[in-house]
């Protein structure tokens, strides 16, 4: 039997009346109308096998990012379930918890610990991250002195080198100058294609998806239209989008 990494059953996520309100508004509204629920993900089920690379595509507002964030445990499901079978998971997010007054090195520590790694683990990987980011002596300068390119290079390096069992990627990241872009794409590819790692990629770049993924899922208005071989699904999707 094959091992599954992610099992999703009848997942529904709503953005309903959970809106911030002011006291005045809520007093005026006491008699109550309102509460229109917007369902971003409308009951989807799928499995991802261990080591599989799943691509998700679909037009804007089809619920891709919401689904991804639910998988990362940032949202809770309103209905249905997500089972990660005990794997560690991270959303490849750029610059989590950076503090501008602190040096690059300290920010690596902070960001790494925020992603759920222990101090020791981050320390062990520190040199690798610094090396990959290639910022030279800037690594010991406060982050606020960085150019925007340097900032994203550092952020990318942290998330790329600190690895989890399941990686969730929202748009394959292209940051920095031409050289770093190539390097990060290659790194991303090697990260993704490592045997044991399960990856879920959300992207509009169909070429990338075709190149990287084992399976592709096409979402439309919160539902799965088609899931299967990248070539087939993407072909159909291209025609749909015309």
């Amino acid at each position: 039997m094959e091992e599954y990494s992610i099992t999703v059953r009848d997942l529904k996520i709503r953005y309903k009346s959970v809106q911030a309100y002011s006291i005045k508004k809520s007093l005026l509204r006491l008699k109550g109308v309102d509460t229109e629920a917007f369902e971003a993900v409308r009951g989807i089920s799928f499995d991802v096998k261990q080591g599989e690379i799943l691509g998700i595509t679909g037009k804007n507002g089809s619920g891709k990012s919401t689904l991804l964030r639910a998988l990362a445990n940032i949202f809770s499901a309103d209905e249905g379930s997500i089972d990660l079978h005990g794997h560690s998971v991270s959303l490849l997010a750029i610059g989590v918890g950076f503090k501008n007054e602190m040096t690059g090195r300290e920010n690596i520590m902070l960001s790494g610990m925020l992603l759920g790694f222990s101090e020791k683990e981050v320390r062990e990987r520190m040199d690798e991250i610094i090396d990959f980011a290639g910022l030279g002596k800037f690594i010991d300068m406060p982050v606020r002195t960085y150019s925007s390119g340097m900032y994203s290079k550092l952020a990318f390096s942290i998330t790329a080198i600190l690895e989890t069992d399941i990686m969730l990627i929202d748009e394959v990241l292209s940051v920095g100058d031409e050289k770093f872009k190539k390097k990060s794409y290659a790194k991303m590819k090697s990260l993704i294609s490592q045997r044991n790692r399960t990856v879920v990629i959300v992207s509009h770049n169909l070429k990338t998806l075709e190149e990287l993924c084992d399976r592709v899922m096409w979402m439309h208005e919160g539902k799965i239209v088609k899931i299967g071989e990248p070539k087939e699904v993407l072909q159909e999707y291209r025609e749909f989008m015309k």
Partner: protein
Amino acid sequence: MNRFIKDTKKYWKYTIYAAKSQLKTEVANSYLNWIWWILEPFCFMLIYAFVFGLMFHHKELYYNAYIFVGLAVWDFFNRCIKSSVRMVKRNKSIVSKVYLPKHTLIMSDMMVNGFKMLICFAIVVGMLVFFRVPVDAHILYVIPILITVVLFTFGCCCILLHLGVFIEDMSNVINIVLRLVFYLTGIFYNIRSFPEPYQSLILRGNPLALLITGLRDCVLYKSTPDMPWLGIWFLISLALSVFGIWNIYKNENTYVKVI
């Protein structure tokens, strides 16, 4: 509750590291750096001493130290509460990208403010020496009192963190409430100069008044604080904290959808 302990352990290192970096960030760009942590409360103490001591002729014994003790605890409480209301929104970049038990944000913030409070207490010790204040074993009561202060603050912060996410103008309300509590806490005057029944009503109903007065009693005046009421407020704080944590766990996943 098990989950709380597990999460706290797991994120403890991060909590400390975040607090440290926060302190570092605060002083990074000013000329006087960490001296401000001493200078600020010290200057406030001088102002209160000048206005109320000299002009209104307050005659508390060791009036300078008297104000300072109150101010240290009040600043801690005040800062924690104020920041907890906007805690989730302020950390939007973090909470919308990774999962983090939300009470770690509070803890980290409390460490920052707690550190500043400890600096103030160091100054208090200096004052005790300088003014030759006689001290005896009563000073040990400081420990249960401070534990209660921290617990009470934590409980309030947890509940306000939750409310602050959903109610936009919570911070306005809190500012007003805090000001009221400030005047009812007796930072710069003695609540015992109030007539009964207000005196005991405030001393028992307002935990900060109780705690600060108790602190002054045992540090400056060699007497025992109101232990039964201290115990009661300790239990209330514990209940608040447990409820706050439970409530955060129950709702924290919807926070991200709101902000």
